[in-house]
């Protein structure tokens, strides 16, 4: 099996009570038990407001990124406003913890990448 290469980012949305606690806790618990490497941030909105340099580094390179946060439209433009526009929409997938179930989000976050096809 090829090593997973997709980067995983989890947003805690710590400054507001808009993401259900049950969902964000279950997703974090699953990530912590997954054995995968992953990044977590306290609050993407807060980072975007400060134009935090780490937003850019999270999207650096050609590696696809899966983000567990809130509505994809909001996350896309938050990164843009934070000075780190999505390189292309196909390489960044946003999973919505405000609407979707934790097991579905977790499955998608930790889904192994398809094996690379040789040319």
């Amino acid at each position, binding site marked *: 099996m090829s090593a997973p*290469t997709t980067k995983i980012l989890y947003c805690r949305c*710590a400054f507001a009570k808009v993401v259900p606690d049950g969902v964000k806790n279950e997703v974090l618990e699953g990530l912590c038990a997954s*054995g995968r490497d992953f*990044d*977590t941030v306290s609050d993407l909105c807060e980072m975007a407001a400060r134009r935090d*340099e780490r937003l850019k580094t999270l999207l650096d390179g050609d590696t696809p990124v899966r983000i567990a946060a809130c509505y994809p439209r909001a996350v896309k433009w938050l990164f843009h406003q934070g000075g780190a526009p999505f390189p292309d929409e196909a390489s960044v997938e946003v999973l919505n913890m405000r609407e979707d179930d934790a097991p579905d989000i977790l499955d998608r976050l930790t889904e192994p990448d398809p094996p690379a096809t040789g040319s």
Partner: protein
Amino acid sequence: MKNEIHPFQVVVYEGAGARPWESSCRLSVTATLLDQGYSVRHVSGAESAARATPVSEAYPVLVLGAFEDSTPEVVDPAGKVTITTRNTGGLDAEAIVEMVATVREEQGSGLNRPGENGAWKPWFPVIDYDRCTNCMQCLSFCLFDVYGVDEEQKIQVQNNDNCKTNCPACSRVCPEVAIMFPKYQSGPINGEPVKQEDVERESMKVDITSLLGGDIYSSLRTRSDKAKSRFSKERSPDKALNERKKCLTKLQQSGIIPEEVLAELDLSSLPSPEEIQRKAEQMAKLTGDK
């Protein structure tokens, strides 16, 4: 920013040379640190080097690990990132969190802590440029200079610190449903996909504006001229304050600005007549250029 914030990056290292943490400890430390405003990266070293995300040069890094031998010293070869390492061997989750706080204080790093008195709640508008038509209604509407334009006269959020917490009023006046507040409770302001009925509701608002004032840009220019005349008579601070109170009451009755936001509004913090006049002139110029 209202708060001086210089956070650092916490890395939980469980790769070669370090013992893995108990799963419950990993979860507890991560959740607690996130709730306190930190960012935490988990590195096991098991994944390909291609996946590795570089750390930002802008922040110092604290590496936590249950190191098997002595705590390693890690130095950034480029000399740009300050890296501190701490051995977590034998510590429980609570002690690890305390250790992080101690290192942060030693380094003088400020933290915007959620829920703490004086913490800044990240509340500000986010523009969906797939929808925005650069009509400038948000710029015209917001009294607090949250919006501005870039060198190409494109609308942008310039002063998000100025935004009044929990006030989504500008998103309600946007005719294209292009302004989001991600921490708002309901859609489409919170970033939910925009439905046709949302657009139709906004169109109705624009129609009402047209009925009231005809061409909106012409109306804005007229309003600017009237404002110039009015400001010259409004030199009395009491009179100006009363005028603002009247306007705020109207806004309250309209339901555009939430009552609790208006209740907390410090009237003396509102822009001065000169500032409003400057903005009116700026708007008149922008809309005149269209």
